[in-house]
């Protein structure tokens, strides 16, 4: 329990401070989170679902936390200037784990929509916040969620009331910025009431070459008939360890797309828990990782079909080079009575190095007898025939490899339902394969 003990000690020393700089809604689940954390500890490296990520090791070093909520010493709007007009979004920032509220974006969202800081939201709308906060991400699920719940003081909220359609995409940039090794524990809470529609792009960036440890819990509540797109684009650096878990609950006829793209990172563990709770709900869960050197991306997905007539589609792709390590573990659970379920899972990986490692494990657990479920997994190299065909037309081998690698990832990008972002991603992926995205240099999604 060495890794856990320092956090338990920290909390017992700083409980009052943590609570003082938070709110009743955020403080309410802490007691249970502490008990859950003490009971479960960090997920063990020898357990099935955490085989390829050593959590305790990542959490052992001593990181600084901003429990006192010291003010953010710079204006992120100056650092990250969004100057591509066709990717015009309502732009917000969370720096480490504090929402940046000194500048209000110059956009008028429809009446009743809230996009902004979590702490402020829980104070302004305690009833709504209490109804949803920490209700999808149960701290009993795993020790990292428990720890995040124990320490979280702020984050981001997108709340869209019944029937409201937010046309303009909302963008949140999470910036890790510090002069010392820092841990950030942040939350994203998304609430879509009946028939509401919105799109959120979250960009993850690290600005400094210090060690960063980030835990992030995302909760998505998609009520009946709502539509929601969630894009997460990670462009951090090799000194960033990120543990993210996303929990989406879909009611009847809700349509949710989650697309997680990792272009640059250190160690990332992304957990996705998607629950289809109302009939005719539709979830699309996709992602890709382009990893090289010693980068690591470990994805765990758990899709639960609790009722009949729902559809889930999963597509995850990895491109690995050097000594990169990728893991994908995808579980689909079709509960008893969830007839006419359609659940598809695909994981395709491309490795161009003998030293890279990819671990993939599909798991289907089906307790209904009238369902369409499939899973497929392949790991291989670029198609030699295609490579030769391109070379025979005069295209240099390196260029042909690049074009084929870009092509390999294109269907994940095709799932993006924001035209400007799609174009941008195609370009970013190409640059990544050309080695032009070696270090995070600000928000490339919009720069």
């Amino acid at each position, binding site marked *: 329990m060495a890794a856990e003990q320092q956090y338990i000690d920290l909390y017992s020393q700083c409980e009052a401070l943590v609570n003082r700089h938070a709110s009743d809604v955020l403080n309410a689940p802490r007691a249970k989170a502490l008990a859950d954390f003490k009971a479960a500890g960090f997920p063990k490296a020898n357990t099935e679902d955490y085989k390829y990520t050593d959590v305790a090791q990542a959490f052992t070093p001593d990181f600084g936390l901003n429990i006192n909520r010291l003010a953010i010493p710079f204006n992120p709007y100056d650092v990250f200037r969004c100057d591509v007009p066709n990717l015009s979004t309502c732009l917000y920032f969370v720096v480490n784990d504090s929402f940046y509220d000194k500048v209000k974006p110059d956009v008028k969202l429809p009446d009743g929509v809230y996009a902004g800081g979590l702490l402020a939201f829980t104070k302004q709308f305690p009833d709504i916040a209490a109804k949803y906060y920490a209700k999808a991400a149960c701290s009993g699920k795993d020790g990292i969620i428990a720890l995040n719940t124990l320490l979280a003081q702020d984050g981001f909220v997108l709340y869209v009331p019944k029937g409201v359609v937010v046309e303009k995409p909302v963008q949140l940039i999470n910036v890790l910025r510090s002069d010392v090794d820092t841990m950030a524990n942040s939350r994203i809470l998304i609430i879509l009431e009946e028939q509401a529609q919105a799109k959120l792009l979250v960009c993850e960036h690290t600005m400094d070459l210090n060690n960063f440890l980030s835990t992030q819990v995302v909760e998505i509540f998609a009520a009946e008939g709502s539509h929601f797109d969630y894009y997460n684009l990670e462009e951090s650096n090799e000194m960033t360890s990120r543990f993210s878990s996303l929990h989406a609950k879909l009611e009847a006829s809700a349509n949710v797309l989650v697309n997680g793209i990792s272009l640059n990172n250190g160690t990332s563990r992304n957990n996705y828990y998607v629950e289809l709770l109302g009939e005719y709900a539709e979830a699309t869960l996709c992602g890709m990782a382009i990893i090289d050197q010693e980068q690591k991306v470990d994805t765990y997905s758990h899709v639960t079909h609790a009722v009949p007539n729902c559809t889930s589609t999963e597509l995850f792709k990895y491109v690995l080079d050097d000594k990169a390590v990728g893991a994908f573990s995808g579980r689909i659970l079709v509960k008893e009575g969830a007839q006419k379920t359609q659940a598809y899972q695909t994981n395709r990986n491309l490795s161009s190095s003998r030293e890279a490692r990819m671990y993939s494990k599909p798991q289907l657990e089906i307790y209904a007898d009238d369902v369409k479920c499939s899973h497929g997994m392949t790991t291989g190299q670029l198609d030699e025939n295609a490579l030769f065909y391109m*070379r025979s037309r005069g295209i240099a*081998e390196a260029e042909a490899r690049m*074009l084929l690698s*870009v092509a390999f*990832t294109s269907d994940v990008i095709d799932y993006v339902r924001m035209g400007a972002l799609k174009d941008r991603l195609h370009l970013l992926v190409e640059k990544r394969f050309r080695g032009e995205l070696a270090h995070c240099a600000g928000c490339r999604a919009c720069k």
Partner: protein
Amino acid sequence: MLQIKNLHANINGKEILKGINLTVKPGEIHAIMGPNGSGKSTLASVLVGNPAFEVTEGEILFNGKDIFDLSPEDRSREGMFLSFQYPVEIPGVSMVNFMRAALNEHRKYNGLEPVSASDFLKLMREKRAVVEMDNKLSSRSVNEGFSGGEKKRNEIFQMAMLNPKLAILDETDSGLDIDALRIVANGVNQLKTPENAAIVITHYQRLLEYIKPDVVHVLYKGRIVKTAGPELALELEEKGYDWIKKEMGDE
């Protein structure tokens, strides 16, 4: 333009080509015929540098250069073009990006600037017309979901775009109906000049009714066993390959 001397080649340790000699001059069209398994496609593959084949002996000079010193991409940039018997599907790579990449590499090799967007689109339009290719096809991924005929047309379209000195057509007629055959042959004929040359590999005389060869060779068991004028193709059509096999003392 092309001189092949005593060419021997293997695939997976098995010798397929057993001493080919062939000379092609500018302005000429050579037909290479022969029964299945005689080594026709192997010859085409070796010419363009397919790494699956190993050359064990011999020499190939293309415009005076030893092509074994050249990578497949450099052979293409030097002006060699193979119309594949089985064109490869490349999902996710659009025809436009593919063609632009290829064209610009050729231009770079020849010391030219990359083609401008408008000139490129104009060229695409112009060359599409050569094989009566639909605009829709050129906006799709390379060969993905194309019918057999569309794939072959796409090969000739690429040939038109790259304007090679030596075109090698490997069974471009296979799988084509009579209309598609006419379109493809018509395309090849339009691209013919006194400066360039073509090697047409085929089983049948049919294609040679449209593309008139100057010389016809018969390839059998890895060697060219007969070389004559266009009348040889007609004779083969009439008599089949058995008489050649007999002449070789096989049957």
